[in-house]
């Protein structure tokens, strides 16, 4: 399927100059996001997600490579980009000493939205973000979730074709997070907006059409959530051993267990063959007097896939 490219980067590199010399933050990123896609950039803290977004937006000067949004180069045409893109930075960054309404009309005027369009769009967006009852409240006095929604509403005032969100739900409660993502879903469905979102939350990554996995300044995987999960070889068993401490080394030593991850007192074990390995694990543990409660096969989630890919990457780079 041929899609129009909204966001692209080729060989994008950023090195920060510090007192201790050059520190690479982004080490060569190739990225293409089609129009109407929701692309999730996931990865551990310090992987270079924020830097990548800032580079593409032209907020930082790149060290090497190319990047553009809607065909406009990040460095050469920053103002073409700024009129067409909505952005929410990682920290909440709207002026805290202005009210919700003042913030909305500030961003509307700055983006050159006409009076007529403002009269129509501002109430719509406030309604959309659930902020209609709070128009007179100072932005700094809003709750965390409402701040994010206000930031989203402000960044959508000029009907941008592309929206870039840097960990928009950081520090927001689960209910507000869900509401926020429902808003993004509405946006995507009704306006065909292209969304690039950084997130540390794997459940949010599952809601993207495609995800890119960042690790130490590189994109180590880039695919649909389903395909990324399918990359993990083998199948996944979940169970709760009665003695976690003793069970872990036993399972790790077993042949056929390619990967073991712990979740609290639960173990997730990747095996090459369920039919053969499940009884083997059970017998190995019961011979040591350890019971396995609720052993069942589960489908690998983003979280397991992510951990597996990162581990594999760090093993490969060590080798």
């Amino acid at each position: 399927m041929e899609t129009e490219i909204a966001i692209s980067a080729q060989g994008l590199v950023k090195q920060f100059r510090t007192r201790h010399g050059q520190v690479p933050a982004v080490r060569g990123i190739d990225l293409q996001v089609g129009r109407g896609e929701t692309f999730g950039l996931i990865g551990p803290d310090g992987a270079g997600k924020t830097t990548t977004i800032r580079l593409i937006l032209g907020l930082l000067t790149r060290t090497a490579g190319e990047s553009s949004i809607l065909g406009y180069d990040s460095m050469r045409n920053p103002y073409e980009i700024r009129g067409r893109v909505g952005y929410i930075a990682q920290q909440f960054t709207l002026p805290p000493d202005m009210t919700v309404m003042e913030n909305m009309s500030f961003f509307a005027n700055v983006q050159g939205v006409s009076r007529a369009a403002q009269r129509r769009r501002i109430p719509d967006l406030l309604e959309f973000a659930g902020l209609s009852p709070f128009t007179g409240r100072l932005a700094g006095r809003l709750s965390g979730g409402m701040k994010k929604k206000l930031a989203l509403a402000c960044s959508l005032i000029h009907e941008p074709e592309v929206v870039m969100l840097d960990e928009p739900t950081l520090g927001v409660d689960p209910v507000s997070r869900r509401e926020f993502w429902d808003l993004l879903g509405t946006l995507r469905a009704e306006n065909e907006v292209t969304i690039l979102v950084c997130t540390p939350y794997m459940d949010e990554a599952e809601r993207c059409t495609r995800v890119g996995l960042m690790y130490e300044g590189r994109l180590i995987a880039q695919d649909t959530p389903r395909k990324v999960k399918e990359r993990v070889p083998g199948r996944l068993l979940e169970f709760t051993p009665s003695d976690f401490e003793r069970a872990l080394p036993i399972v790790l030593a077993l042949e056929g267990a390619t990967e073991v991850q712990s979740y609290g007192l639960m173990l997730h074990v990747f095996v090459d063959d369920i039919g053969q390995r499940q009884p083997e694990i059970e017998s190995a543990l019961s011979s040591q007097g350890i019971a396995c409660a609720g052993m069942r096969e589960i489908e690998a989630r983003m979280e397991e896939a992510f951990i597996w890919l990162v581990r594999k990457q760090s093993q490969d780079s060590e080798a």
Partner: protein
Amino acid sequence: MRKRLTRFGAVLRKEMIQTLRDRRTLAIVLLMPLLQLLLFAYAIDMTVDHIPTAVADLSLDAQSRALIESLLASGFFDLTLYARDEAEVMQAIDAGAVRAGVVIPPHFGEQVERGQAQALILLDGSDSFTVQSGYSAALAVAQARAMELLVQQVDRMGLGSSLAGLPVTTSARVLYNPALDDLVFLVPALAAILLQILSVNLTAMSVARERELGTLEQLLITPIRPLELMLSKMIPNILISAAGLLGITLAGVYWFGVPFRGDPWLFAWVSLLFIISGLGLGLLISTVSQTQHQAQQISVLLFMLNLLLTGFIYPREPMPPAIQAVGNLIPLTYAIRLTRGIFTKGVGLSFLWGDVLALAIYSAIVMLLASITFKKRLD
């Protein structure tokens, strides 16, 4: 063009809202000049008089008493301790009980008759203001006393008619400030230094605050141009600085009676020029500092230089050339000469054009540098 105007209007409106909403800062900024003026007017006096003094009169005759009388009558010395000898006077100065001492040696009266009397004045050198005042006061009193004695002597010798006066005298007239009122000297300079503090600090802080809060990032990603952002930061601060200037000038003239002799409009234009140079300096500071704290510290450093090197309190003439050159890099140096020139001396552009030109060039350079460094990037 239309879009550009709406855009600029929006940013300017945002800055005005934020400036007016921060009531506490606004109150401090507007009351600070008046507070400083009050302090300088009522609390700080740069001429030291009524210096606590210990006196050891080892002569105890008419001449010694007369000298002590005239020293005390000058108002510069207050007798707080009668000491037995020089050692006790020293002790009192060491202990900090007195700041000056007078020691009159034995047989003072006889020595006066022979024309070779000497009294010892001891001054606490740890306070240079006391030394300056005390030294010149003691010298003046002694000379006056000597003159008196000389005239008496001449009288007694019957030459009174031939010595109608001294062969050489000086007559000094202090221009602009005949009463030597500190306020006349301080108010114009205070107006300038407060303008400097206001304009530099306000701008440096407001940009640094945006950077620290992260709101700068959100502004950078809008189509606002750097120049628009810069101007919008400056305009509210120009207004506040102007209000501060008006306050201190009115208070100085109407409350403290400091005469304003020059052209008020010239004063206003020169002040505007000076405010702009300060705003530019503030912007420069804000671009090199990442946090409000850093900006504050640079401002404090600048304030120290302002206080010491620009002629605000200490005269610039005795400073070594290198230090004078540093002072020339600070706009306040020119501004103080200008405010004193217009305010106190009442002279016009024909005398002051050099400093006005210097200030104009300074403003232009600073603004240029600020707009070059004030980029719309985060790194």
